[in-house]
């Protein structure tokens, strides 16, 4: 993300803060907790792509693109958390399945698809639930990007591009 886009993400967060918002969301999570959960998911994705690139478990061009986009998401989320006056949470431990997934490109594609699907589901929930309206659209724009990552991974793995006709409900 270039500097302008980062600045815009921060501006969106700042605008969101201008509106009074209840401290807790629908399921009792605060906006900060919602952002921290997303940040943890993004960190897992970034670490997974980085590890896959080191082990050549993903095409280099695709892996670098996805890793770099996850880093942009992390920067945006950290900036939003900072605007809320929160510190970014500590790095998460990679899931134990990652070691097995790195043994082949097909295995890593399945593993990464699962992580991306978890991220999309988390963003779908977060973009609807977060109390500050100004943060919903930025989170939605990341959600749509993660959905596109699923398609990129399926294309690279020779899988059907669409998961199904049913969509999310």
């Amino acid at each position, binding site marked *: 993300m270039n500097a302008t*886009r980062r600045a815009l993400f921060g*501006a969106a967060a700042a605008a969101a803060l201008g509106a009074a918002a209840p401290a807790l969301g629908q399921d009792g999570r605060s906006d900060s907790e919602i952002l921290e959960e997303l940040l943890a998911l993004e960190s897992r994705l970034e670490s997974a792509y980085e590890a896959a690139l080191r082990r050549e478990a993903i095409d280099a061009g695709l892996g670098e693109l996805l890793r770099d986009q996850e880093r942009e998401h992390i920067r945006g989320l950290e900036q939003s958390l900072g605007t809320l006056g929160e510190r970014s949470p500590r790095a998460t431990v990679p899931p134990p399945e990652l070691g097995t997934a790195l043994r082949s490109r097909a295995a890593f594609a399945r593993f990464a698809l699962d992580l991306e699907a978890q991220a999309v589901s988390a963003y779908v929930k977060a*973009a609807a*639930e977060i109390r500050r309206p100004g943060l919903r*659209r930025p989170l*939605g724009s990341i959600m*749509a990007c993660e959905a596109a990552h699923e*398609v990129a991974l399926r294309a690279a793995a020779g899988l059907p591009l669409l998961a199904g006709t049913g969509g*999310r409900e």
Partner: protein
Amino acid sequence: MAAGVTRRAALGGGAALVLASCGGGDPPPSDGPRPGSGAGLLGSLLALERAVIAAYSASAAVLGGEALRLSREIRAREEDHVRRLEQAIRDLGGDPPPGRAASEYERTFPRLNAEADALRFLEDLEERQVRAYLEALAELPELELRTMASEIGADEGEQLAVVRVLGGGPASPHPFETGAL
């Protein structure tokens, strides 16, 4: 290259024309829902979904193979989105605005002479749908409605990526889809 840009601009202009016209001629939702319920916004999303379904139907004439198969799958998803939006409007006490005849939508579409034309047109429409649902997230007052908009928005993001791949482009060219920051 310049010709390609011009062609893309023309197709994008076609998408803009579709958007400008897809809601304007449709009757507004009934007076049932209370002001600020979100029914009007859902009606606008519904009008756009119907125009996009018509665009997928019109594109079938120039699509083949995998592109045709996937475009039919995407159209089926859009029809499901229409059903969800119609039900949400009814739940708010409104009547979903009726759609138009396919021929009326098609009059607003650009000329689609080849598969590449159709895919560029569909990509533009999918981008506009993603943007519309993301904007709705900030506007819809009830969590249940926002959850629906979020779920459909994720579908649209996935569909946009599929259309891009079919057109030979990258699935995810930007870290923030539609630049919606």
